[in-house]
């Protein structure tokens, strides 16, 4: 499809659904095979890149050189990064076309993409405009569902921000092992939890882009120096004898009946193809996952957001008063409520006197949760649960949630995120309101290929 038409379509969708914070209109003014505005390194020969002419949208928190990147926030309005994130560099080298930056909860703080930056628009669910896209990567999932052209999105998850919106918007979303994909150029939410991963409509595209963006990066210390498998080889591989653990707690209290049914149908399908299933219990993750996740994520986030003070980039105000007064004014005026909430809680939990009880304790529980998963993977190839316990909620219902109820929505997704385990959400059908339902598979560290192997059968 012609790039000009793609951009036109994106603009049209955006007017209605608000999936983009920025559309790279710079492309539009140029001929369709001349994308200097966003392509720094092109493949040697035109046409031999693995992503040649494929449209890629990018979550707002991933830096694209010269293209406004604000992590969905107001405080970074008009900020244009001076460098490309490693994943952007890699896809550009393969000839991809960056079409724009997708809407998200500011800094990734949310499960419904309703916590967008001040004065910004909330993305609407592609199946029902009165419902949320899920979060925090709502725009990524929405455009992935809506685009008529071949499209992959580069998204990011800290506690479920890839699989949750993928589930709510009916697309595939894969969150890789922590350290599999470089975070260089990712605006940090919680560095020990952040992972960049893709969403797409086809498993082929997921496998393709994972082969390109994975791997060691000398610019990012937490990347793993492990060989990247040829993921596409696993698309056709059968799943005979594969052992899948069904997470017992995920089918218990609080789960929507229709979600349960559809996911159980998915399980049956896998069984018919030769997979062996068995129930497994993860009591520790169930009981402490959400609390542990939010403590650690907020502690880290509160330090990451300190740099946004109206001094070097982003928002700026008239210089008045002492630096303390100035920083406070900018931060008070530009951060949204959820950002402030997380900064305050995160700062509190690492202060002397509380640090041991919260931050240190959470770090210890996290280790225990990892151990619980590791024990499970000694026995199973994959773990399975619904991605979200319910379908995309209506905005009017989200408004009624307390912050705590809001956080509890992540109960199924925080576990693999805390443990740095790769996981994927795959569409498992629709409920009677025609809202999509997602099934989640979790694999052991660096076993993304198993997610692709089994996921492609659903």
């Amino acid at each position, binding site marked *: 499809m012609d790039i000009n038409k793609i951009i036109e379509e994106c603009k049209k969708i955006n007017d209605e659904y608000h999936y983009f914070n920025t559309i790279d209109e710079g492309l539009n003014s140029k001929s369709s095979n001349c994308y200097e505005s966003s392509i720094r390194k092109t493949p040697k020969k035109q046409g031999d890149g693995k992503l040649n002419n494929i449209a890629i949208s990018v979550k707002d928190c991933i830096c694209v050189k010269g293209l406004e990147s604000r992590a969905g926030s107001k405080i970074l309005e008009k900020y244009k990064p001076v460098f490309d994130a490693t994943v952007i560099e890699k896809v550009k080298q393969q000839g991809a076309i960056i079409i724009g930056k997708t809407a998200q909860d500011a800094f990734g703080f949310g499960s419904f993409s309703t916590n967008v930056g001040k004065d910004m628009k909330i993305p609407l669910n592609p199946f029902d405009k009165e419902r949320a896209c899920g979060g925090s990567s709502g725009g990524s999932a929405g455009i992935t569902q809506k685009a008529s052209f071949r499209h992959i999105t580069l998204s990011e998850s800290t506690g479920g921000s890839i699989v949750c919106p993928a589930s709510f918007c009916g697309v595939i979303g894969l969150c890789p092992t922590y350290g599999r994909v470089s975070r260089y150029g990712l605006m940090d939410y919680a560095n020990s939890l952040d992972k960049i991963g893709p969403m797409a409509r086809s498993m082929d595209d997921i496998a393709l882009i994972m082969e390109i963006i994975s791997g060691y990066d000398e610019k*990012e*210390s937490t990347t793993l120096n492990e060989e990247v498998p040829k993921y596409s080889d696993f698309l056709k591989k059968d799943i005979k004898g594969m052992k899948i653990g069904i997470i017992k707690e995920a089918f218990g209290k609080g789960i929507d009946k229709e979600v349960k049914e559809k996911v159980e149908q998915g399980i049956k399908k896998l069984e018919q193809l030769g997979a062996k299933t068995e129930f497994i219990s993860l009591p520790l993750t169930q009981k402490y996952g959400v609390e542990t996740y939010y403590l650690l994520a907020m502690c880290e986030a509160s330090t990451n957001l300190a740099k946004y003070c109206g001094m070097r980039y982003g928002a700026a105000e008239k210089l008045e008063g002492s630096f303390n007064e100035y920083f406070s004014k900018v931060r008070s005026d530009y951060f949204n409520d959820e950002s402030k909430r997380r900064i305050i809680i995160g700062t509190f939990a690492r202060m002397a006197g509380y640090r041991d009880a919260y931050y240190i304790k959470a770090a210890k529980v996290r280790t225990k949760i990892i151990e619980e998963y590791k024990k499970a993977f000694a026995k199973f190839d994959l773990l399975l649960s619904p991605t979200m316990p319910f379908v995309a909620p209506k905005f009017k219902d989200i408004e009624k949630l307390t912050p705590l109820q809001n956080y509890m929505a992540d109960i199924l997704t925080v576990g693999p995120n805390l443990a740095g385990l790769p996981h994927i959400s795959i569409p498992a059908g629709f409920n009677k309101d025609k809202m999509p339902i997602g099934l989640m598979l979790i694999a052991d560290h660096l076993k993304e290929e198993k997610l692709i192997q089994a996921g492609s059968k659903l």
Partner: protein
Amino acid sequence: MKFNSDIVIGLEIHCELATKSKLFCGCARSGSNEPNSRTCPTCLGHPGSKPVLNKKAVEFAIKLALATNSKITKELIFSRKSYFYPDMAKNYQISQYEIPLATEGSIKLGSGKEISLTRIHMEEDPAALVHPSGMRESKFVLVDYNRSGDPLVEVVTNPDMTSPEEARDFMNQLITILQYLEIFDINNCIIKADANISIKESGYIRAEIKNVTGFKDIERALKYEVARQKEEVKEGKTLKQETRAWDSEKGITFSLRTKETEADYGYIVDPDLVKIDLTKEWISEIKKNMPELAHEKLAKFTKQHGLTEEMARIISKDKELAEMFEAVSTAIDPELAAKWIRRELTRVLNYNKKKLNETGIKDIHMIDLLKLIEENKITETTAQRIIEKLVESSFDIKEYVKKQGLEAVSDVRGLEKLCKEAIDEAPKAVEEYSSGKEKALNFVVGIVMKKTKGKAKPDEVNKILKDLIK
């Protein structure tokens, strides 16, 4: 802690390590001084940038830990120290908290007293704040990020020092160690101290003096502070625990803030940096390449080379001179070698404001030169002149002496002739000498020296003259 000395001093010293690049990015640590020219997204704290640890800096810090006999941690962990300040690119500083690089080390003072170290840890330097018209008067502040991210080690002592002089000596000893290890460049590395000081009369209520640069100022600042605290107690005032600044120009300290509680930096482990294993193999590899340190050289110079304590101390303090001394004394009498390296060479270097490595003077030059003295082939005056020339350009000593005809005149008959001439030329001085004025002879000796262009030995000339006048 219980104290009983009149003065109690503890130091926290920040030293910049002389690496090529900064601690967490590839920017040059030194070089262009144009503001903000040595910066990148990481040291400017741009969104999305990530730190990558400079292993060389770790190696340098480990050297210091080894040199101070510290216990080195098995895992290197960095933490975020959070506070808002305009010189902080990220509004947190990457530092170390619970587990520092090293603990339980010590440094010996000149007196032999040991000062124990609580910890040595690594951290990044913030940017520099530039107050265009002075700290108090400026309406605005400029920020220069060239320094942002420079590698620092912080050395924290126990409150073991009991006088400003000891604090000065501690700084001195530390600088010597840093220079011996070649991890510090006095020309472009910052070294500054925060000093905690209290006195008995106040019940040891301590003041912290921030950012004192150099060992001379440490002594000055602490002396001022002792006097101030004593004066205040005498006047019946109660001292407050406070943080003070040092004004080097005026030679005074002034209060910055009174500390009610310890600042809360909300430390968390920096999740962008992985734990680094400080393996036994790595540390022993570093150990293998450690130079002999000043105190070891000092002991050797007194015991093996037979130097006096004072001479050994002065020579061992400067690594280059100490190494030259060792090399030269394999061929030359150590005492003579020490004397010439310590006095003449140092004098000429100081006069020319040069360091040894900035000249072409090598061990072989000193050996050749001192051999000629030992063999009485040149006079000391000639040798002094040669060193002065050597500072400017390097040349072969033996050849130079031959070419310039600088061999000492030891031909007695030839000297006698010149002495007779001198006596004839200075009848007045000879008369004075004869009438008992011993010093008058020096004038005559001077004439002979001039005639020989300094090549005669003054002792010999003296003797011949006395014989002739008698």
